[in-house]
């Protein structure tokens, strides 16, 4: 009972989902004995989820690729020959080198759930292609963009609720596999403290199940619901006017000159400072000055004759409109007006009658000293259910406005930024890849993804047409700040806006669960031009650790390692892991060497960069700049002087944090500290960070910011108004005629609500039901259902619907239904339940597998009973005027709108007679995969007599 647990313990960072928890891996007899959470780690504080604990089965998966592969059969056949790495890298370098010498745009490099975006984006920049992004356009760019343009931060990893102080918590549309351990830990703290948890979600699973109140809203109506809450708060005067005046642009004066070029922009002084109306002086003066008493209402005239009004009044007029009254939205939301009014009352009471105080003096950016930190203890969090709709950007903006009106952003008890946020709203980096920035053998001056703040920042040609392959940063999606992964394959196949040569994908299962129009996408990947006989997408290079559905479509496969077999860096240049109290970053270290001929993708990318002679990856003599691969880069790369991928233990002796010279011992210091670094900021810096002198100075000192200017929350978005004006025909850079109406309608400077586009596209009568997915907490995308342990928890997925709807349709548990959308159909067994919106059906995400993929038995339930809702989701809207088909996406950010889906269901026969759940032919299982065991009896190392275990003796107690 007291045997040593392990021979050694190696710390690292989990990668079974995107949380990036700290782990301790126990090794025994050369095998992995146990993976547990690291109690010292700021993200997970010792806990670990089901996915993390199943890392052993990830590491031992028979779906792991073992060798580089060249395709020999047709695309999609799964027929390959094994090749050596020299050939693989030489082939890739030859293909990519030819592109770079010709036109770097012809490389489209898209990564999936990549945790090394600081490297991959920099690599694309050095290569010189603007056609780069990760998966954010599919995931939650609506949330990120709305947050960054409003607050200079966003939900999820950019911030966190003040779990220890909040008293009222609203959780909107959360995906339960994301940021899961921090949210679970936080929810238990709220429950222990007796705070109220309200979950707004069409489906009552996981977190919603333990909420004090579940609001089963109809999908796509969250924005209406929030606007109605704001309406109620305004009517009652329950708004934190002091917060609005100090920290937001609520008092800034907006020019009212309909039909003129400056309409809707802020009135500014000669220095460009926005003006406010000082009620003492009775005149317009620059915002932010000392001793002002700015007005929040009132239409006045400036000396030059222009009419102006405070932004807040426009906001109030918008939200006080009768269409946002609770009674007007109740039916659409599926939430009674009385309930909306009660929630508003509870929010107001928590915010204004239960304020929380931290006895900590602080000084604001103007130099004014505050004796205490006073907070409004209302916090919010939102995720995929908000963002994956075509109205998600404005919905998320509305949520942020609700937070701001309650004065609850980065205050005690509110929602708080995590460093390096807040950044300016929006951040100052512009997208890279304008026409004059792209050319043969030329790096781009900036990283491809950035934050446009005016039409001139868009990546469009002289005729206003997109110049990125995914049409991000075009008039179709001006604020597509995460790119549009979901459009790449179809655009490349169509040659719209232009054909490409090579599609280079990393960890993005685009031929299956990471695509809309799944069947069509697979066809596009394998379709040939009948005239030339060549594939329409000429070359596909793919890197993945597993034999996913996408591998079969690649011409060249670069096998990656699992997360337990490589170095990695979770960088502040990418996505933060710290806490509201301090900055943090982390590394992965190899726990075990790979037992097959695979290489970490990050090493491969640096190797390819050196072979291609890319700037920054090659020394002047042509030798690789990072001969030690990714760990060499992690330590020695500098993005700007003193700032590198890792912020901890910098400087020659490791005594600097944030900024400092490269430290050759840096990785050793991380390893000695459990593979993470966390640096707490001073107590006086921990709240009001957007306006807190101590924070802003600390952030500059740490290299997180270039200057200490405050972040003014943008209730009213002048950026959006600039685009709207272009849509109305004002300015130098104008959209093509056909785009103008759309730009003018959706680039609204104030939040609004409109029905998700799919509702008109599908027709209410023909497809009366909403269909959404929920993330099982024990799975992460396609990784879960190939894992020997996790697939026993979710091996197939029924279609869940309300008991009332089931009774109406004559359906009982286990009956099969045909689920049809305007795009396609699938079949599924049904399960009736109470906890789901009456107009909504739902299922678990990404359980289904294509027969033959992932080295599962082709008769596995994942292939024969599970289904993907993706098959029903069109990637395009129906043709509009002129026949053009827009992406099924948010018109502001390009976010894939896959939660807009509308379906109808009808009873059908079981698969034995009606056929498989979804149309997807079997693909060949690659012969070079590890042998698939029938049974597993896992031990760290095989032990004699494992089939008959030794006894547990009775005298175990000491």
């Amino acid at each position, binding site marked *: *009972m*007291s*045997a040593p647990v392990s021979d050694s313990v190696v710390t690292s960072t989990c990668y079974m989902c995107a949380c990036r928890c700290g782990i301790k891996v126990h090794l025994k007899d050369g095998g992995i004995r146990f993976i*547990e959470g690291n109690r010292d780690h700021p993200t997970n504080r010792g*806990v670990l*989820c*089901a996915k993390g*604990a*199943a890392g052993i089965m990830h590491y031992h998966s*028979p779906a792991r690729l073992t060798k580089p592969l060249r395709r020999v059969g047709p695309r999609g056949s799964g027929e390959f020959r094994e090749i050596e790495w020299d050939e693989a890298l030489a082939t890739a370098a030859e293909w990519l080198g030819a592109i770079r010498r010709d036109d770097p745009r012809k490389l489209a490099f898209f990564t999936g759930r990549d945790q090394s975006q600081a490297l991959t984006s920099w690599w694309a920049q050095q290569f010189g292609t603007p056609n780069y992004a990760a998966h954010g356009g599919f995931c939650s760019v609506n949330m990120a963009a709305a947050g960054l343009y409003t607050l200079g931060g966003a939900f999820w990893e950019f911030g966190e609720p003040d779990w220890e102080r909040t008293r*009222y918590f609203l959780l909107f549309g959360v995906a339960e596999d994301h940021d*899961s351990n921090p949210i679970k830990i936080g929810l*238990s703290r709220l*429950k*222990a403290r007796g705070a109220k948890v309200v979950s707004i979600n069409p489906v*009552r699973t*996981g977190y*919603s*199940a*333990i*909420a*004090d*109140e579940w609001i089963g809203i109809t999908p796509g109506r969250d924005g209406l619901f929030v606007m109605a809450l704001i309406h109620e708060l*305004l*009517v*009652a*005067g*329950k708004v934190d*006017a002091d917060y609005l005046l100090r920290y937001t642009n609520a008092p800034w004066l907006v020019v009212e000159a309909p039909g003129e070029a400056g309409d809707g922009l802020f009135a500014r002084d000669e220095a460009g400072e926005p003006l406010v109306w000082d*009620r003492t002086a009775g005149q317009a003066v620059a915002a932010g000055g000392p001793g002002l008493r700015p007005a*929040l*209402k009132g239409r006045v005239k400036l000396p030059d004759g222009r009419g102006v009004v405070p932004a807040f009044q426009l906001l*109030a007029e918008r939200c006080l409109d009768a269409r946002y009254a609770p009674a007007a939205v109740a039916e659409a939301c599926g939430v009674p007006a009385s309930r909306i*009014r009660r929630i*508003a*009352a*509870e929010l107001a009471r928590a915010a204004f009658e239960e304020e929380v105080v931290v006895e900590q003096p602080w000084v604001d950016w103007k130099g004014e000293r505050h004796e205490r930190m006073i907070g409004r203890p209302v916090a919010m969090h939102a995720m995929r259910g908000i963002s994956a709709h075509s109205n998600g950007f404005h919905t998320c903006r509305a949520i942020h406005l609700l937070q701001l009106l309650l004065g609850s952003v980065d205050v005690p008890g509110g929602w708080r930024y995590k460093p390096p946020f807040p950044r300016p709203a929006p951040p100052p980096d512009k997208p890279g890849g304008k026409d004059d920035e792209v050319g043969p053998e030329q790096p781009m001056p900036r990283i491809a993804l950035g934050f446009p703040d005016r039409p001139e920042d868009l990546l469009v040609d002289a005729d206003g047409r997109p110049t990125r392959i995914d049409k991000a940063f075009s008039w179709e999606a001006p604020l597509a700040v995460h790119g549009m992964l979901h459009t790449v394959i179809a655009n490349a196949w169509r040659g719209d806006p232009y054909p490409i040569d090579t599609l280079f994908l990393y960890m993005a299962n685009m031929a299956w669960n990471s695509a809309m129009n799944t069947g069509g996408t697979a066809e596009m990947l394998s379709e040939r031009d009948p005239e030339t006989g060549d594939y329409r997408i000429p070359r596909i290079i793919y890197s993945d650790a597993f034999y996913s559905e996408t591998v079969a479509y690649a011409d060249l496969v670069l096998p990656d390692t699992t997360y337990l077999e490589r170095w990695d860096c979770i960088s502040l240049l990418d996505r933060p892991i710290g806490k509201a109290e301090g900055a943090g970053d982390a590394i992965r270290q190899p726990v075990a060497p790979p037992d097959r001929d695979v290489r970490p993708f990050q090493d491969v990318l640096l190797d390819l960069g050196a072979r291609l002679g890319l700037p920054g990856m090659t020394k002047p003599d042509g030798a690789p700049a990072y001969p030690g691969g990714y760990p060499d880069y992690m330590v020695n790369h500098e993005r700007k002087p003193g700032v590198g991928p890792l912020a901890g233990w910098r400087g020659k002796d490791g005594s600097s944090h944030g900024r400092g010279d490269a430290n050759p011992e840096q990785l050793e210091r991380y390893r000695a500290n459990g593979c993470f670094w966390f640096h707490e900021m001073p107590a006086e810096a921990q709240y009001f960070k957007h306006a807190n002198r101590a924070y802003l100075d600390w952030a500059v000192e740490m290299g997180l910011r270039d200057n200490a200017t405050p972040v003014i929350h943008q209730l009213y978005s002048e950026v959006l108004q600039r685009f709207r004006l272009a849509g109305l025909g004002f300015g130098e850079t104008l959209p093509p005629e056909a785009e103008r109406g759309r730009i003018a309608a959706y680039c609204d400077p104030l939040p609004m609500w409109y029905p998700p586009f799919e509702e008109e596209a599908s027709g209410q009568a023909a497809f009366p039901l909403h269909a959404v997915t929920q993330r099982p*907490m*024990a799975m992460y995308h396609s990784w879960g259902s190939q894992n*020997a*342990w996790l697939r*026993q928890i979710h091996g197939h997925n029924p279609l869940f619907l309300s008991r009332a709807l089931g009774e109406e349709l004559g359906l009982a548990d286990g009956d099969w239904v045909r689920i049809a959308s305007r795009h396609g159909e699938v079949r599924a067994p049904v399960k009736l339940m*109470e906890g789901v919106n009456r107009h909504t059906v739902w299922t678990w995400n990404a359980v289904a597998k294509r027969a033959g993929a992932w*080295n599962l*038995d082709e008769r*596995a339930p994942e292939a024969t009973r599970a289904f993907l809702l993706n098959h029903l989701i069109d990637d395009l809207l129906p043709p509009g005027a002129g026949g053009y088909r827009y992406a099924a996406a948010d018109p502001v950010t390009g976010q894939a709108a896959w939660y807009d889906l509308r379906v109808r269901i009808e009873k059908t026969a079981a698969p034995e007679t009606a056929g498989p759940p979804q149309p997807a032919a079997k693909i060949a299982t690659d012969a070079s995969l590890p042998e698939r*065991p*029938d*049974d*597993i*009896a*896992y*031990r760290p190392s095989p032990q004699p007599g494992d*089939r*008959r275990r*030794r006894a*547990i003796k*009775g005298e*175990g*107690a000491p």
Partner: protein
Amino acid sequence: MTSLPKPDARGSKSLGLVIDLDTCVGCQACVVACKEWNTGGIAGPLSDADAYGQAPLGAWLNRVHAFEAGEGADGRTVHFPKSCLHCEDAACVTVCPTGASYKRAADGIVLVDEDKCIGCGLCAWACPYGARELDPVGGTMKKCTLCVDRIYNEHLPEAERVPACVATCPTSARHFGDLADPDSDVSRLVAARGGFDLMEEMGYRPTNKYLPPRRQTGHIDHGPADALEPAPEGGFLGWLDRVLSG
């Protein structure tokens, strides 16, 4: 048949779990951590038959079931973790024909001596909670050991000497301790939160306790709130004048 420890030989401790149904979100973390610890531990391996096939079937010592209770607005979703409850009157022990199943006198943990287990399955039939599983490959009976190879393990730091399911639970819904000691943290928790015996009427006197979901009426400091009153005297804009008049 096998005997339970005689009352006069029974030690003072009753180690067990307290499981909080108010905070369990059904994430399955405890389920997989248990599998992971125990497959490599003293009760392992916990095998998985047909692991990548048509009908995977593994031995698990802990499972979480989800069900709904009540209808309409009164309904709720309950996640219900279930493992051996280490009963005082453990029917799985008394039914065992070989002496393989036994209850430890010192701390009350119910274990299986696999050298004696013939895999007859009588204990699984006798257990009222369905908490025992036959290993599909090894052919012997598996059950929760309360991580007996962790809780007394001097190679682990003191704080880690708890069952793997307790250590990993992200919502702190699982607690471990001595339920025979009325002053223990777990006993106090049971008293404070109205912890109950699962199917008490059956009389097996389980050691593990469950804490019921709390009343879902909202904020502890709140009375009922109906709706906000419109701002008097000039409505919203009048309110704005007053609030800014200072």
